[in-house]
């Protein structure tokens, strides 16, 4: 496990990258993953994935020939698409942290019709359902193999 933190330059590139991954949407009225609160959560949550994040950002830097954040928008889209294909396991680890933080944001959860809370202690309701569906199976003769 590494407890290293990213440099300011890496953080700038990361912020630009997460905005490519999940941009804000007017249609769904949700922030992007580069929203201040969500991004702060992402940075805090990198923890044991920091080394993979750093590996990913290095590749991103190489693909863009410099800082990803400094590229113009069109160029960023293009590099991000290549990076998505080439990033491998390290990028997946980084992408996972982004998703973990994005989808637990209150605003995002509400937009999905979810209550922003922990599952315990309130729990959830699951309907019993129509048990008569089982009737045809109940009529079947035992079919386990007898010795």
């Amino acid at each position, binding site marked *: 496990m590494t407890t290293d933190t990213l440099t300011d330059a890496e953080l700038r590139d990361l912020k630009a990258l997460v905005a490519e991954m999940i941009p804000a949407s007017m249609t769904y009225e949700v922030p992007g993953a580069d929203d201040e609160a969500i991004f702060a959560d992402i940075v805090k949550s990198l923890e044991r994935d920091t080394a993979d994040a750093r590996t990913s950002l290095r590749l991103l830097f190489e693909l863009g020939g410099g800082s990803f954040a400094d590229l113009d928008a069109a160029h960023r889209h293009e590099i991000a698409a290549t990076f998505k294909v080439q990033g491998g396991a390290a990028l997946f680890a980084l992408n996972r942290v982004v998703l*973990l933080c994005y989808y637990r944001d209150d605003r995002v959860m509400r937009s999905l019709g979810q209550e922003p809370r922990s599952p315990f202690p309130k729990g959830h309701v699951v309907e019993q359902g129509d048990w008569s569906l089982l009737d045809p*199976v109940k009529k079947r003769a*035992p079919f*386990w193999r007898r010795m």
Partner: protein
Amino acid sequence: MHDKVDVLIIGSGASGAAAAWSLADTKMRILCLEQGDWVKPTDYPTNGRDWEARLFSDFAINPNRRNRPTDYPINDANSPIKVVNFNGVGGSTIMYTAHYPRLHPSDFRVKTLDGVADDWPVDYQTLEPFFAENDRMMGVAGLAGDPAYPLHHPPMPPLPLGKSGQRFGRALNSLGWHWWPSDSAIATVEYDGRAPCINLGHCTPGCAQGAKASTDITYWPAAIRAGVELRTHARVREITVGPDGMATGAIYYDAEGKEHFQPAEMVIVACNGVGTPRLLLNSTSAKFPDGIGNSSGLVGKNLMFHPFALTYGYVDEPLDGNHGPPLNLWSQEFYETDRSRGFVRGYTLQLHRGTGSIVEAITSTLAGRLPWGEDHHKVYRGLLNRRLGMSTITEDLPEEHNRVTLDPVIKDSNGIPAPRIDYTMGENTRKMMEHGVARSKDILAAAGATNIGVEAPILNGGWHLMGTARMGTDPERSVVNEWGRSHDVKNLFIVDGSIWVTSGGVNPTSTIQALALYIADSIKTRLSEGTLFE
């Protein structure tokens, strides 16, 4: 030096807990050494907003990722299936999903019926009273009358069908295939002081409600009340032997890394299908240079996993999502041998509810289904809570080259050599898995699901660990006898999944525990007869 105990149990998981409880009524002095700690209900992920995130950190199912001080590393590089477990009071039941089928009668007779592997030296009928006792102790929900099984009566009503269950039920009915509410080790009503399930839907990394039957809340409170001592943070390095070749006790490390010797009249190993061979192989002496109890050379060999295939799709309406225990139905349509399928033996189809919203986003990203950019939101909303999935649980046949050995380099935090896994999936299993995936696709199509995904075998799917210290009557072809005693060391017993002869095609814990109760009962009978060590 500690006082000598009558019975030393190593490992407090599914089997160790059952054996400890059963033996407690002998009034012998019983001690269990467990390398991990108790998990408090307030520690479980569903207490917090980061409940899904913790599946990837301190509640990851893979111990190499989880990396708690109480875990040991496992070299799994040479296996397409990675070992997953939990090390603590309750063992891997802390992390299991509590899907709780029994082996079928035919599973104990595969040589006779199908000409493969070996028959077991015990049968379903012998285990039947122990299955029933275990169901009562763990608290099992289900429905009597499943035509795929001999009649038995789970003590609690089944888990709710929910939306996904009804969709599956209709689909399977349209195909004319078997399905049934699963036996589940989950309380659906108040049970023995345990609160009923409130559908938190995240059973695998631990149940904050205490509805899921992990052995820290089932067997252990009863065993401790009956006088058994459970010593945590006690990691056993080796089982020791005396000049007469009998086990004398165990050497272990405490939380501070201090070495202790615990003497005992008899030793019962319950460290699971990987931890047990590791411990036996680490227990070398002049008498047992290749590891204690290993005169057959079979300790660590014949590792079986139940390779799992996950097949899933998406329907056009929201279902239960992750609400409710994730596994509530099974189909045994393809369980018993039908040679026209091109393989022998068979598999269970375990029918799933959906996943949590973040796990959906993660798995869909990995599968290339969820894009980056503007479209992300639209595509995600078309996936969320619409997943229907099922896993094929294949019967894995024993093959000696699939094995647990000691890694020459990697050690745990106490310097004890770690296990190394060498495993490849057999041809029969591969064909069975293909068949299971094809039939799963049929079911999904009948349920109106599209956008089908498959993970076969599931990478982090080494949750069922069996076969590495197999039972049998022939000391040259097995490690323990028909009631769990080592052929070589007459006061050494094994009660966990290592003793399985073949794997069957169901989740194993119910049968592991029934076997542990049966072995404990055999010990008690022979103790009273004075023949235990003969």
